[in-house]
């Protein structure tokens, strides 16, 4: 029987705990705020003999991901963690990891990108990595960060997928705040993730294989990219089934899209990460006053759950998308572009507004979210036009 205990811990401590329970063979990491305490905690587990992981200290994130790729190709279960400039510095390796179909699991503490320099939460770093071929999960809470990390291992290593997975949590808000969470016993997690059996281990003396070969002019590069697309499409079902299996064990729900009040909502906010909690809090208050508002939280961003999103939003009269990242020069932020594209398939056009908010950790006050719901109510009532793109709370 699975045994869980309730503890008070930061998101980072819980991610490190989940990683220890998944027992990676190798971790290569470089510290960066606000991720550092993940690898610090993990290094402590290694030093105290609580996990038998080859912990490789490297001189940069570029090297960290390179070492992870090497170890994963060698046949190891590999994990790492990074944030912001570190993730940006890994950019070329992110594509290599997914192209080589290596099931690396990486935690990312979502943080702003320079300049100006800023260490606080937004999604600029992770959204910059959205087209790198990784599966990307977002956590709202420390609990979700813990659960997502454990699920990530199963998703990445699933034979239908074999792609790297990023399990992300919001910098400081989730990484450093102490939160209540339930932690599963080691045996249950260990049985859930199982043993990794690599398909083409470089360190198999019985079988010589080459990783990272050339597929150039006239070669099958195009076919390899097609198979990557097919793999991430197959990952939709794997994300759902692994999530359902973990839900069964843990008693905590998982959905690629999670909703609040959507059974009768006339207007809705679509949001990712920690702000979903604020949005639900505001929605709960407004619903108590009789406003039919709802919240749609996207927990899995890659593959993007467009079918689930359309299903959740199909009845509403207006939608607001909260984007904690820019896509300068585009029609809106990264989430808005996905949501609007998903809504295109509906027979009825739903007005949508993009709100860029919380960049560089700028405060997401409840009044701001209330304002978004009020804007939506005006659009739904036909008394206002969708504003296009709004910098929420800008001076």
């Amino acid at each position, binding site marked *: 029987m699975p045994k869980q205990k309730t503890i008070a811990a930061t998101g980072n401590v819980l991610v490190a705990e989940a990683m220890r329970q998944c027992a990676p063979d190798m971790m290569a990491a470089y510290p960066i705020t606000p991720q550092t305490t993940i690898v610090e905690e993990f290094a402590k587990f290694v030093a105290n003999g609580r996990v038998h992981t080859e912990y490789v200290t490297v001189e940069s994130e570029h090297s960290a991901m390179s070492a992870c790729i090497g170890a994963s190709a060698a046949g190891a279960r590999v994990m790492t963690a990074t944030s912001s400039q570190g993730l940006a510095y890994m950019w070329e390796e992110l594509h290599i990891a997914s192209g080589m179909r290596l099931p690396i699991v990486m935690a990312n503490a979502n943080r702003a990108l320079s300049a100006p320099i800023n260490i606080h939460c937004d999604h600029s770093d992770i959204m910059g990595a959205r087209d790198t071929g990784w599966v990307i999960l977002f956590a709202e809470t420390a609990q979700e960060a813990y659960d997502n990390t454990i699920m990530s291992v199963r998703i990445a290593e699933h034979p239908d997928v074999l792609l790297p997975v990023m399990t992300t949590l919001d910098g400081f808000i989730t990484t450093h705040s102490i939160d209540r969470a339930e932690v599963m016993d080691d045996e249950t997690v260990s049985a859930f993730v199982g043993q990794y059996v690599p*398909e083409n281990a470089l360190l198999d003396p019985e079988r010589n*294989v*080459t990783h990272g070969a050339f597929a150039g002019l006239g070669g*099958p590069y195009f076919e390899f990219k097609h*198979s990557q697309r097919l793999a991430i499409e197959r990952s939709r079902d794997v994300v759902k089934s692994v999530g359902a299996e973990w839900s069964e064990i843990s008693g905590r729900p998982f959905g690629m899209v999670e909703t609040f009040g959507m059974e009768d909502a006339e207007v809705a906010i679509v949001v990712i990460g920690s702000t979903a909690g604020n949005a639900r809090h505001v929605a709960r208050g407004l619903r108590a006053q009789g406003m039919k508002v709802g919240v749609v939280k996207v927990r899995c961003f890659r593959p993007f759950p467009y079918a689930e999103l359309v299903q959740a939003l199909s009845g509403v009269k207006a939608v607001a998308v909260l984007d904690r990242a820019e896509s300068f020069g585009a029609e809106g932020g990264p989430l808005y572009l996905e949501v609007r594209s998903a809504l295109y398939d509906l027979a009825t056009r739903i007005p949508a507004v993009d709100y860029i908010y919380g960049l560089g950790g700028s405060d997401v006050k409840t009044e701001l979210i209330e304002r978004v719901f009020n804007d939506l109510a005006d659009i739904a009532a036909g008394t206002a036009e969708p504003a296009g793109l709004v910098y929420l709370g800008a001076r």
Partner: protein
Amino acid sequence: MSWDVSKIGEWKNDEFPRGAVIPDSGNSRDYVTGGWRSERPCRDDAKCTQCLFCWIYCPDSAVNVADEKVTTFNLDHCKGCGVCANICPVDAITMVPEGCELPEVK
């Protein structure tokens, strides 16, 4: 195992080994790379002292040797870099433009 790539030009996405892995060793000789060449080495047997410098220096192992003597060049893999001609101590190797011996080019 022996990896049969004879139909590689017809393979579709998931027929390729995942992640562009080559699941066997010793098959680079099946991959013909000589098509890049714009010049080919031409050895004068009368000048050649069989010092084997060209065989040692060739970056593509494209100098064929039998009984410790240079015989021919492996033009499936020679890229025409000219290292052999450059290193030859007796100028027995000259680089000639690819295709020049064809009658229509002459």
